[in-house]
Each structure stands twice: as C-alpha cells, then as structure tokens.
C-alpha cells in the first residue's frame, strides 16, 4: 500500500470536537492500546508592551505537505504505529485556541509516546509554516520558535 501526501491544514483553530471525533474514530481499531496526543495552544505572551491576542499562520503549502509526508513516512518506518495524524491551523487562531494537533496510536505506549514527541519536534523544525503574533495594541510581531 502506498501512502499519498494528505492535507494537514485546517482553516482557523482546531476544535475540541474535532479532537474528540478523531479519538472516537479509533475505537474500531481494537489492536490499539495507546494513544499519544500533542496539542499546541496559542499563548497570551507579553510582547513589546502589549499582549498577544492571536497568531496568524501562513505556510508554503505545497512544500509543507511534501515535507509532512516525508516526515510521516520516516516515523512510520521507525516506530510500530497503527495510526498517525497531523493537523496544523492556517489563518487566525486566538489565544487559548488550539493550532496544532498531533496524534499517534500504537499497540504499546512507548512507541506511541516516542513517535508523538519526535513528530512534534520535526513539525516545529521542518515545516515551512510561519506565525505572526497579533498584539492587543494592533501591533504585529513575527513569531520566533525557540
């Protein structure tokens, strides 16, 4: 079975209902024993005398999807996983809302947990996505990942 690049981008925030639905969808897969989930949430950081009210995400979409596919394949190769899902927001995501949802499932916990952690790290470092922090005083600041 060949896997094809699939869309990872979601317009706006990722809802808790979507996350619940995604978890629910796995109840039919009774060889799964462990799910590991990572969620990125937009913080109200203080910046330049104001406070972040939202982040506006843009991406080089074609390249990001190719890269996400390459990362998926490498992680599937390295870990014994049943499923893997990646969702990243585009456009505006307000503070307190979810902008990244990474979900790995496996028979045993170690595989699911380690794969999820590596996936988050690679997504942050390798996907051509940019966040612009929108401040309460109408200012803007390009986000810098640490």
């Amino acid at each position, binding site marked *: 079975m060949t896997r094809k690049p699939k869309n990872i981008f979601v317009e706006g925030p990722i809802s808790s209902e979507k996350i619940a639905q995604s978890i629910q969808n796995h109840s039919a897969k009774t060889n799964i024993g462990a799910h590991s989930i990572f969620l990125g949430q937009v913080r109200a950081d203080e910046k330049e005398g104001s406070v972040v009210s939202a982040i506006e995400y843009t991406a080089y979409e074609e*390249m990001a999807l190719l890269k996400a596919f390459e990362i998926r394949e490498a992680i599937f190769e390295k870990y014994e996983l049943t499923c893997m899902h990646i969702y990243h927001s585009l456009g505006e995501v307000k503070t307190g809302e979810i902008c990244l949802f990474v979900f790995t499932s496996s028979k045993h916990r170690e595989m699911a947990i380690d794969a999820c952690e590596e996936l988050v790290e690679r997504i942050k470092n390798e996907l051509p996505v940019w966040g612009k922090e929108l401040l309460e005083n109408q200012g803007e600041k390009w986000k810098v990942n640490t």
Partner: protein
Amino acid sequence: MEKLTVKAFGIIAEKLPEQEFYFPQQQDTEELLNSLYDEYPDLRNMDFSLAVNQQLIQQNTRLRGNEEIALLPPFSGG
C-alpha cells in the same frame, strides 16, 4: 524564455514589493542570491533559506530552467 518563479514567505514577503514574482533565469543559486541582493538590498540583513522546487537546499545548486524558488525565513509553526 526561461524564468524563475520566486515566492517569499513570512517576514521576507513583507520586505519585498510582491510575494510572488518572476525573475530572470540564473545559472545557480549563488548567482540568484547575488542578483536578489542587488535588486532588494533589504534582503542582505535577513535570515532565510532557499528552496528549489520545494526542496530546501544547503549549498550552491545549479539551476536548469523555470525553477520555483522560495525564500524561507526561520520556520515558526506550532
């Protein structure tokens, strides 16, 4: 006639008059960078990587014609 398609993202896009534009074909990415620096001096002080046809490049890369070039500031997704 062969030409490059240049796409700029993030803070780089804000420093250029357009986010996507055509640019005369160049021999390699080093020549391209120098031409871009001449045309858009603001780029000189900026930190960015190049992708050629959606592949990040780490060193000077030969261009054969009609490539899609992307100017990518440090990623900040998630």
